[in-house]
């Protein structure tokens, strides 16, 4: 598997020519530094863009066009990554050799994608106001319903509390209370700035002819992209004096316990793989310490795992427990953390964690999105590397490296979503 990266008019193009899929996948990633004052306006942009273009003036027209292209799919999303706010457009189209009437869908999908991003439906020089109003309503609903999912709720609240003084504490979709104040003009201004200043990465995975695609992209995405790499690599200097403990109460049947650690290590670090191995031993897999102890030994939980945010230096443990077991669960999780820090694990545990991570990496190469994700990580890292380099780096991690990395971890916040006092008190 080879990913070739180049620049076309300032847009970063990443191609992977591969014949094992029945489809071709395209992802456009637009990345700009997180900015607290425009986070909500920016979150609205992809949805407004999907609401209509000059050529396809409403959602239905765009959707019909996609259906006609053998059910080409188009998803957009907004998320945060480290200190960046990211908008993605993701398309998937059938490879022509499997269609009974072969047509080349790649060029028309790139045209459509370009049209959506660069030629929105315009009214009086700005976005169409009825589309903006519609999408404001949807965005508000999206934000509110995020909190209806109690797992999501706990995770959002943990981040809100843990990063109180940083733009990172705001959800990627923005704030509900800011939605009303947006209008076609203000959102359009944020959009124009984004086009000027954001970094654009276009990923294409499928059976493609590299040279053909390059010139196709150059012709279709003919705008000049002037991204200048403002480094906003974040160094976490937060000193943690005392662990913050936050508790909310809602009508829930199960307590959600989320704990946030600062790892002081991001994907840009040379020895980041040691953090990955440490997390694999700690909580990443069903073979990890959290699962073995919280679930298999103590029967306290059904789901329990830990996750890294590789660009923010954040590690979150998550589990769902009975309300009465809060203190005991926190104790067990911390015991696993101390075990890791004290080197209380075997060489065999390290080997097992490494082989799980390597297996996961190889499995990622079996899906188009997995390949795109590997390419994105190379972009995040700031240097291109391939899967074999990554495997080699994982293999080199020693038990000492893991101990060293785990000892940098600092528990910042314990968040617990408790139940309302409607029955007997939990504690």
């Amino acid at each position, binding site marked *: 598997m080879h990913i070739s990266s180049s620049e076309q008019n300032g847009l970063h193009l990443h191609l992977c020519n591969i*014949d*094992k899929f*029945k489809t071709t996948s395209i992802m456009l990633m637009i990345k700009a530094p997180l900015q607290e004052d425009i986070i909500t306006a920016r979150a609205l942009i992809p949805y407004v863009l999907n609401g209509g273009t000059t050529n396809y003036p*409403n*959602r*239905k027209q765009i*959707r*019909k066009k996609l*259906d*006609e*292209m*053998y*059910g*080409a*799919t188009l998803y957009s999303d907004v998320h945060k990554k480290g200190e960046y706010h990211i908008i993605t457009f993701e398309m*998937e*189209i*059938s*490879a022509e*050799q*499997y*269609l*009974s009437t072969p047509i080349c869908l790649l060029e028309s999908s790139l045209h459509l994608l370009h049209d959506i991003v660069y030629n929105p439906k315009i009214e009086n020089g700005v976005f169409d106001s009825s589309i903006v109003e*519609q999408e404001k309503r*949807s965005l508000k*609903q*999206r934000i*509110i*319903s995020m*909190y*209806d*999912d*109690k797992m999501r709720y706990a995770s959002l609240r943990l981040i809100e509390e843990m990063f109180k003084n940083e733009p990172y504490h705001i959800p990627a979709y923005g704030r509900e209370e800011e939605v009303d104040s947006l209008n076609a003009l203000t959102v359009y201004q944020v959009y124009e700035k984004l086009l000027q200043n954001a970094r654009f990465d276009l990923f294409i995975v499928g059976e493609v002819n590299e040279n053909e695609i390059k010139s196709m992209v150059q012709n279709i995405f003919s705008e000049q992209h002037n991204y200048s790499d403002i480094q906003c690599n974040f160094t976490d200097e937060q000193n943690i004096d005392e662990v913050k403990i936050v508790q909310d109460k809602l009508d*829930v*049947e*199960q307590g959600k316990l989320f704990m946030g650690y600062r790892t002081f290590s991001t994907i840009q670090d040379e020895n980041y793989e040691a953090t990955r191995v440490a997390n694999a031993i700690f909580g990443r*897999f*069903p*073979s990890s310490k959290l*699962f073995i102890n919280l*679930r*298999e030994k103590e*029967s*306290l*939980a*059904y*789901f329990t795992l830990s996750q890294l945010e590789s660009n923010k230096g954040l590690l979150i443990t998550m589990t*769902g427990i*009975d309300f009465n077991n809060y203190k005991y669960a926190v104790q067990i999780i911390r015991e696993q953390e101390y075990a890791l820090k004290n080197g209380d694990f075997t060489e065999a545990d390290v080997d*097992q964690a490494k*082989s*799980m991570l*390597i*297996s996961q990496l*190889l*499995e990622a*190469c*079996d*899906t*188009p999105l997995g390949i795109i994700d590997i390419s994105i990580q190379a972009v995040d890292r700031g240097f291109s590397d391939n899967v074999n380099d990554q495997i080699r780096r994982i293999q080199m991690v020693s038990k000492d490296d893991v101990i060293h990395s785990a000892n940098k971890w600092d528990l910042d916040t314990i968040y617990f979503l408790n139940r309302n006092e409607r029955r007997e008190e939990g504690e």
Partner: protein
Amino acid sequence: MKEIKYNQLDEVIFSEQYSNGLEVFILPKKGFHKTFATFTTKYGSVDNHFFPVGKDSPIIVPDGIAHFLEHKILESKKNGIFQRFAKQGASANAFTSFTRTAYTLSATSNISKNITMLLDFVQEPYFTDDLVEKEKGIIEQEIKMYDDNPDWRARFGLLENLYKNHPAKIDIAGTVNSINQITKEDLYTCYDTFYHPNNMLLFIVGSVNPEAVIKLIRNNQKRKKFREPKEIIRISSNEDAKVNRSSSVMKFPIQIPKVFIGYKELNPMRQGKGLLKYEMILNVLLELMFGKGSQAYEKMYDKGHVDETFTFDYTNEKGFGFSVIGGDSRNPEEVIKIVNETIDNFKEKAIKKEDVQRVLKKKIGSFLSAINSPQFIANQFTRYRFNEMDLFDVLPTLENLTEKDIEKVLHLHFCDESKTTLVLKKN
């Protein structure tokens, strides 16, 4: 060893049935790192009333037992299954549905060893009273996790509206009460009845040599002793076409209400090609009426009645079937009204050929995209096989559908007496 070629998709499947009745299917995938396998028994949550093997009277088992059994099989050895696979860089998992219990394997190395381990842990269970008791705490937390999930609650709320007696209305995991009644003996009774190789199917997809794998499994099966296969007699429940309740409102702590409209299948006994064609048509119909490119969706979206969570699906297994339409909505009554009007309008007017062609294209594209995934192929092939269908007949069936076929099913399925609505909202 049998060999079936699917030329249009450029795939070949090898198969074999062993003397103990076990069927194995192998789909070699060139260029893939991962080998994915599912070992599935035709036994799920709805199989709660049956003749245990060797007994001459039927029994009714506690709700959630198939799922409980799945948990216990995954943890039946002293060393956890997850850890044992992890030592070989592989991961195992399992799931229970209405009609199947599947054990899955994902591996990028040690393929023969891992396949052997998958077969052995499922075929050599070991339950003790203590281990059964210990599992109850874990499953209780799993049930509570779903209790906090509004979409899951809504799904079973809708099924309770649809069914008077059929066990499809019972939550797959059961209730905290029902699982506490389960004993070691109950588990062995269900295991002995439903886990005979004759009731199971093994599907392997990945970069494997089919001949070698088929031989490996043959030798593995020869070493084990099984009783003679016997026909499993399940007792079906009394269920007519009428719904249990035509509407209901469920209270749930959410900000954005949810609305779902369900239709109960009137003739749920179809199998084989008849079922394949019928369910394809229903999926096409739902897409025509309510897909993102439909008039109804546009109208509801523009008016702010629905957002992109609005969706639909159709389920049909031997003995029960239903379609569900709905999602988040601030105006549930309006959604119900527009869904009803849309169905009535479709019944009155002829369906447009161009719309059918567009939707068929979309369905063909999404099938091609789906079969990129080894997991999808393994799971779905098994489901199709258990219903006497062939997954790879999907494309030719879609390509040959006509407007006449579609209109016929429209009038058959969408009947007033088989309709129900459910609204989920805050107190």
